[in-house]
């Protein structure tokens, strides 16, 4: 117990005290809230509400509606944070080279054959979770992370070598990632750019028609609610998350001899 530890303990107990007081004095609402907060209730009410068309997003899953419609800008930024972290990973590990023929075989044949069966199933389940995000629990990010599990499984069981031979290289994943992000940005701008030349009012990230703008994304496809742009966003987000996280996994799996190559790419410090 040196002086630093005591100071730390004191400040942390202050934090605990403050937060506990906040909770027990009902600062975060009554301790057993029986009602929803009015804002939460507004979201639940408006999320699927064709009877009040100017505020709805035609999504049965309220969380997805909030994520991609009511608070779509947050999610756009969140996607960019993921993009920035991939770029940051590339900054730290730039200059690596993907070497094949390092002779790492992966696990036994039994686990390989099991993986061959399982991996496509996981990917399909991920895609289904993503594109049904507005109907059932799920969404682009959920689907993407589920699918990444398949990719990491393949890396673990078959080794990185297998992915390279299948043509999955980091630069291709990066390209896929950038294209997905571009598609999301274009989708968010689509209604606004359609409206602008004809001088019709439309908003960035707009999904359904509003009181002061008549443009709308397609709401229903063959009797199934499509929730307009939410479907598209989920699809693109799936691509982004899958490619981005697989990229990150591949970067961290890089073998020692591959990592050595980043030393050769050293630059002058200025």
């Amino acid at each position, binding site marked *: 117990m040196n002086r630093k530890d005591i100071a730390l303990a004191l400040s942390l107990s202050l934090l605990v005290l403050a937060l506990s007081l906040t909770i027990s004095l009902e600062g975060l609402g009554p301790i057993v809230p029986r009602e929803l907060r009015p804002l939460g209730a507004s979201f639940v009410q408006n999320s699927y509400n064709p009877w009040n068309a100017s505020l709805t997003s035609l999504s049965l899953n309220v969380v997805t509606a909030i994520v991609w419609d009511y608070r779509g800008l947050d999610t756009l930024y969140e996607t960019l944070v993921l993009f920035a972290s991939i770029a940051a990973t590339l900054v730290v590990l730039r200059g690596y080279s993907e070497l094949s023929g390092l002779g790492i075989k992966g696990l036994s044949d039994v686990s390989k054959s099991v993986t061959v069966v399982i991996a496509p199933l996981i990917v399909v389940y991920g895609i289904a979770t993503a594109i049904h995000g507005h109907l059932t*629990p799920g*969404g682009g990010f959920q689907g993407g*992370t*589920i699918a990444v599990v398949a990719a*990491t499984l393949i890396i673990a069981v078959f080794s990185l070598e297998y992915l390279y031979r299948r043509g999955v290289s980091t630069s291709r994943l990066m390209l896929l990632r950038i294209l997905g992000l571009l598609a999301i940005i274009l989708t968010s701008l689509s209604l606004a750019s359609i409206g602008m030349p004809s001088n019709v009012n439309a908003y960035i990230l707009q999904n359904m028609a509003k009181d002061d703008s008549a443009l709308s994304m397609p709401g229903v496809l063959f009797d199934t609610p499509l929730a307009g742009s939410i479907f598209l966003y989920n699809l693109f987000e799936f691509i982004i998350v899958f490619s981005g996280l697989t990229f990150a996994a591949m970067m961290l799996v890089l073998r020692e001899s591959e990592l050595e190559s980043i030393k050769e790419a050293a630059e002058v410090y200025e």
Partner: protein
Amino acid sequence: MQIDVLIIPYVVIIYSSLLSVFMTYLVVRERDLLIATILTLTQGVFYSLLYLLLMAPDLVLTYIPVSVGVTPLLLFLLVKKTERFER
């Protein structure tokens, strides 16, 4: 006898939240980083259970792949590439 069924989730919530405090304590104390990673993974399972009981299926779907799949795997790789014991 509706009531008896309804108390079960609350009991599990109390149990898992108290256990998660203990887990965090263990993670802080554990010197073997590999075991600490496994403890974090276990904690992730409890958290997913809590998300499920707190009626957040979207978060369960996100949290299980992230905390039980991707993060521990990357951490195992990192520990394998660096060092295993905290000194």
